[in-house]
């Protein structure tokens, strides 16, 4: 074990503030992004779950007013 006591471990040889704030920032940024992405996914699936089945698979639209059918 590098530091024998826990407090020495946290002091990181005097530059503990910088080391732990670096890791803290990393944790905040990465977990924050992960959290927001998961929330986005949950919101989307919830929103789209109650989407009704009728959607874009409508029949072809071409109607020929002059009677001739499309070849």
């Amino acid at each position: 074990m590098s530091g024998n006591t826990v407090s020495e471990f946290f002091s990181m040889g005097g530059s503990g503030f910088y080391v732990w704030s670096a890791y803290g920032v990393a944790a905040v940024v990465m977990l924050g992004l992960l959290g927001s992405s998961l929330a986005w996914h949950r919101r989307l699936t919830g929103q789209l779950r109650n989407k009704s089945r009728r959607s874009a698979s409508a029949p072809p639209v071409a109607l020929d007013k002059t009677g001739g059918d499309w070849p």
Partner: protein
Amino acid sequence: MQQLLAPKNFYLWSGRWLRPVAWATGLCTLTGLYWGLVVAPPDYQQGDSYRIMFVHVPSAWMSLFVYAVMAGAGAVALVWRIKVAEVVASASAPIGAAFTALALMTGSLWGKPMWGTWWVWDARLTSELLLLFLYLGYMALEQAIEDRRTATRAAAVLALVGAVDLPIIHYSVEWWHTLHQAPTVTRFGAPAIHGSMLAPLLVMALAFFGYYVSLLLVRARCELLERERTNPWVGEVCRGIP
């Protein structure tokens, strides 16, 4: 591989692979942290402040790697119009920007104990800052265009131009740095990597890569739902797999 590119198959496939990748990443992160923070000996020169390296260096590597993936996926989306490639490109951008911002913040946190200032116009930090602007430009352009597909394809052009320009930017900043070399030799970067320090660094790099892949899968699935919202499979999938 061919039908994996179909949006619905990709959505289901990525859903299956998400949990195993996430667990592996978690495990990898824990071992990396323990190894780097506890096991690795302090550096004879910098003492323990060098441990910031285990976060700074992987995020710097990942910021470049994610940009390469973004530009590559963008190129595929432009040429072959594959929707999954568009989705991967536009899902990667925020992750890459986060890695770049992280690299800058941890870099300046590491610089403070070493040189006493929060920001140094060091070649690597400066080109990392410019990379951040490339990411921000990409995301700003993509937000500015309404139609999702056009937005991603336009941003893909920017990503490709940026990818061509990135080595040039790096070289010109390196050259510029040596020209305006501050008198004190500021050799930034990891101290001579000793075996006991390299191993945790590589483990942490793997952990960051795992984090990127799992987050990419999550965001890509969201982008896919957004873009395919009018297709029938979206409704079924949301009902099928809560």
